[in-house]
């Protein structure tokens, strides 16, 4: 009798604790889901701002076709600043990979961002030619899978960008993203595999390059690049 009473009490205690624990975990899930879903709208806002900056810069480039030194200085510094912003957004978008209800919105952001980056790359090229400036314009295409080192090559570009006295505009793009301009770039620049870097719209380097190799490659196009003194 004593045992049965004890078991009944245990049953009630266990059920209550079980239900309370299930409720707590459900709340935790709901909370996690809600917080995780905040990031996609936040990324969309950042992307919208960067797109506005790009449009403003593009407009300024059109207006400043007179090639005055004042307008070129603004365009060069604007390109550099925009590139920094896009680099930050790139790492944020990569970090934010999502499988929540915003998955389709996230994929949409990926595509919009790819277009924005390509536009900024083209704009940098346009400003370089328009102002005859020392912009070193690099486009890196990397595959989505099968290239563990690509993340380091991207980092190296960012590193060189910060360390150089040049305006190095590095645009890093996922080549497997399903947008037609990437296929067009592949055809125009004879890209046979990834990773590939395209420098100043006229030279293509296929395959992974570590920091030393990358510096050496870039120095061919920017001899006064501050890091080139160390390259043999």
């Amino acid at each position, binding site marked *: 009798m004593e045992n049965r009473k004890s078991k009944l009490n245990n049953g009630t*205690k*266990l059920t209550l*604790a079980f239900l309370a624990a299930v409720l707590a975990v459900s709340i935790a*899930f709901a909370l996690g889901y809600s917080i995780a879903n905040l*990031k996609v709208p936040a990324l969309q806002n950042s992307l919208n701002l960067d797109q506005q900056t790009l449009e403003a810069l593009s407009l300024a480039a059109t207006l400043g076709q007179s090639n005055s030194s004042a307008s070129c200085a603004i365009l060069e510094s604007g390109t550099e600043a925009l590139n920094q912003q896009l680099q930050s957004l790139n790492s944020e978008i990569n970090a934010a990979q999502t499988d929540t209800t915003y998955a389709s919105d996230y994929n949409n952001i990926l595509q919009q961002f790819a277009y924005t980056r390509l536009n900024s790359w083209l704009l940098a090229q346009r400003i370089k030619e328009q102002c005859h400036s020392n912009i070193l314009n690099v486009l890196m295409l990397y595959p989505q899978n099968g290239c563990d080192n690509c993340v380091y090559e991207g*980092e190296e570009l960012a*590193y060189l960008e910060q360390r150089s006295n040049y305006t190095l505009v590095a645009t890093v793009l996922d080549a497997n993203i399903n947008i037609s301009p990437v296929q067009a770039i592949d055809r125009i620049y004879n890209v046979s595999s990834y990773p590939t870097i395209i420098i100043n719209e006229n030279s293509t380097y296929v395959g992974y390059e570590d920091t030393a190799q990358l510096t050496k490659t870039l120095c061919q196009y920017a001899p006064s690049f501050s890091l080139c003194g160390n390259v043999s």
Partner: protein
Amino acid sequence: MLTQILLEIMSAVVLFLLFFWLFIYYEILNEGKGKARVKNLPRIAMVIPTLFEGDDLRLSVESVLASDYPRDKIKIYVGLNKATDEKTRRVAHSFGRYGVEAVDTGVNGKAAVMNYVLKHKVKEEFVATLDADSMADRKMLRKLIVPFSDKGVGAVAPSVAVYNPKKAVQLIQKYDYIFSIVLRKAFSHVGNLLVAPGPGSMFRLSALKDIGYFDERNITEDMEVAIHLLTEGYKVENVIDAFSYTIVPDKIYALFKQRGRWYTGFFYNMLKYRKKIMSKDNHGLIDRSIMVLIFTSVFFSIIALPLVGYYIYVGISYTYNSIANVGLTFSLQTLQQEIINVGYSWSVLSTLGILLLVFGIYSLFYALNGVTKRIDAVKDTLGIAVYTTLFSYFLGLTWLYGFINGTIFKKKVAWKIANRN
């Protein structure tokens, strides 16, 4: 994607277990501590089996002599192994003038020695056991006797704490023992306390007789006896404020051996009693649903080990390669962006992980405060940090070792002098 889902499920289950045991523990606290006292204290026997403990035995016996339990109602027996060394024997005999009886059992093995004393010497209805490297708190015996007013209680376990921790390995075990105290209380609250620890448990002699005493072929006899009592319908209770203190290993290898033995014993005994536990017509008290929760906890602590190891490897490997490529200075410069990225990489799993961390640490401090009544902000925070990272990893490893030994190799859990820790 699949990994993400698996990790989310795993975290949710672990979080569920954490909340479940926390709620049970809250319930215990809300009941309030029993201040019940027994007016007519019965005569009890104290059995201290000894092997090579030497001067540590002196501390054990003295702790019982200093008990607030009426001296004329305790009969103390020191059970000597056949292999016990001369020094320990001399210590045991030196207490003769206090009425302590050193019993030369002529057998080897802790369980065998205790059984010998129980069968040939003990006449009292209640008998406590105390490992020779352990000490009883002054009030322990008075508190342990209280639950026996329920005739269904076969054993009462104390709260075992670490005696005088000095070295780092001992200090970290202090936290482990404190959390075990809380867990054991929670287990006993739901009727599934699966151990009556050697340092200080008290038994009803008739219950021990009924189950055929301690299993002499089992080195985790304290676990075996509790499971055996439960499967035969006896309750195993715990008194959270009845303390005993034990000397713990001061070297990591000795600790690994000790824990490996305990966890091997756990799986060995689970296999031994699985039919009785699972049988529908058993009249035992082990709740199968609680056993599921216990096994789930153990399972997750085992699989979490390679998983945590993998993520640590990935993190270190990425950091190393990154620094090798662009240098430490630049890596530090990008740290701010990395921190922002953490926010953007936030997922359901991150929330579960953070909640696990927060509530895990909260429950550890809560347990610490509940048991010790005081918290040293710096020392205890550091101790808990090491416990939750390095030591929990170590525990996962020893659980895995115990699982392999106890189930796959079905290692014979038999007593050996060399293996005793």
